[in-house]
């Protein structure tokens, strides 16, 4: 009698369930491998080390969060000595109270008057060097605003390092010290150093340049000017050597509005 041949485990039992059988076999094999891996000491140790590192990292983060977030929050939650604000009608009749209120009121009025006096009713110009904008005020009303150019914050150094200049617009309160029409630029030493030219004598004709400062210039002290420019495309950018440049129309309006002594606020 011929022995019945059992089907090979790798071969499908029938054509209807070949895929199902194959998947089970693969899964069983994978599970067996996984069990072997899990029983492997090296793997367990690695897992333990990873879990210890993870726990330590989580604990460290928790401690950090406690110190930098929870403790400051806790500090802000602690009640402090608070004022119980009252409005006692009996107190209002007290002469001491009335005197105190009257004194405070008087101080307040005095301070108010003093502070209001600081705000001048005259014309003044405000220059914002961060945004390179100007604002012209007349009788405390804004009458004109626009772009300007201020100091570039470039520090020019000679190759030897013995001389240096920093090109920034000074900040604070200034006054118009002088007004000029058709100004001539007398080039300082740095203008020659910057271009790699030899420095001429103080009255050398090469020091004088005509028409580069526009039609008007207003001096604000220490050699700084508010003037026009031939580089109009750079208005709104910090490109100057410390002076304030304006376009021709704005310059004319400011020149005609401000007088000698008018305030210039630069920030």
């Amino acid at each position, binding site marked *: 009698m011929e022995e019945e041949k059992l089907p090979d485990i790798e071969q499908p039992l029938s054509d209807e369930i070949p895929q199902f059988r194959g998947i089970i076999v693969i899964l069983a094999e994978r599970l067996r491998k996984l069990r072997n891996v899990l029983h492997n000491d090296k793997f367990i140790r690695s897992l333990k080390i990873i879990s210890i590192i993870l726990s330590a990292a989580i604990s460290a983060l928790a401690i950090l969060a406690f110190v930098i977030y929870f403790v400051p929050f806790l500090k802000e939650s602690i009640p402090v*000595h608070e004022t119980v604000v009252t409005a006692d009608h009996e107190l209002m009749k007290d002469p001491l109270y009335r005197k105190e209120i009257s004194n405070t009121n008087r101080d307040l009025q005095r301070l108010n008057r003093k*502070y209001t006096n600081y705000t001048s009713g005259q014309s003044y110009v405000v220059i914002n060097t961060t945004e390179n904008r100007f604002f012209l005020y007349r009788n405390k009303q804004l009458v004109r605003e626009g772009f300007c150019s201020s100091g570039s*914050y470039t520090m020019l150094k000679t190759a030897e390092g013995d001389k240096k200049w920093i090109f920034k617009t000074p900040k604070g309160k200034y006054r118009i010290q002088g007004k000029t029409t058709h100004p001539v630029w007398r080039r300082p030493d740095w203008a020659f150093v910057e271009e790699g*030219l030899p420095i001429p004598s103080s009255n050398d004709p090469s020091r004088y340049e005509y028409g580069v400062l526009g039609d008007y210039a207003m001096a604000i002290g220490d050699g700084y000017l508010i003037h026009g420019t031939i580089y109009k495309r750079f208005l709104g950018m910090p490109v100057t050597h410390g002076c304030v440049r304006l376009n021709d129309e704005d310059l004319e309006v400011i020149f005609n509005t401000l007088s000698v002594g008018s305030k210039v606020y630069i920030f």
Partner: protein
Amino acid sequence: MSDQRFIFSDVMGSDSIYKKNGRVAFYVTTGLILAFLIYYAVISTLGPSRKMAELISEFGPKVEEGQKTGERIYADSAYLSLLKEKSWLQAKTLMAQTDSIYLAINLADSTAEIEISGVIVHSAKISNYRISNILQNGDRNVIYSLFSQPLTIQNDVATIKKEPVMIKIAPKDTSEFQPDVIPDTSLVEHVNLILEVSQGLRIYIYQEESDKPAGKGSTFRFDLYDRLYYAWNALRSAVLFRVPEYQPYIKIKIPREDVKIIYRALPRNGQIAVYS
């Protein structure tokens, strides 16, 4: 064979001892860390009360003992309202007397203004603000007296340079001359700022733009570094059994450009007035 078994059992025994010791060390360390954290939390919470006590002793009204009326005046709403206005004006007037640039932060009006000699030269809208508990709820008399003097900047930390100076070496002759590079005005700089001012106060000025991830990330990192720095100093004090210094704060959010303008406009030791 028996020797081998003995050696093996001995190794196992010492291994379990190590494990036991390790566990004990772990519990002791955890306990110590927890104890220190609790101690740190407790000692840190003493800071605000101590700061308030300091402010009371320096700025508190001097009421003679038994003067009930005096005490009641200093808690009266009408008097406090006048005192608040007076303090604000007093601080601003003191600053206006100089020709310097100063900052006036009005939390009630949500404005931060740069002024020069009483003239408002720039105004920024505060979109959001937070203030320390002791400045918000502390003794009104003391807080208004504290703000009646300008706060002087003693130190600052910012994400941008105060003066963005670029160094240029002069050419040796005309052949080396190169015209200046035109600044790129399209660059976006994230601007956050901390001003450490007198009386141990801190004024945080954050940019309000946090809609883009880069802006949010920049503000988060800036805040994190500050918190770490603050916590480090506090931990050092706690280790030395000293109450960590508490610095009351005012945190405001304004547009990015305004933070830059304020930072670059204020002098190194500029002054600030606060109206809360």
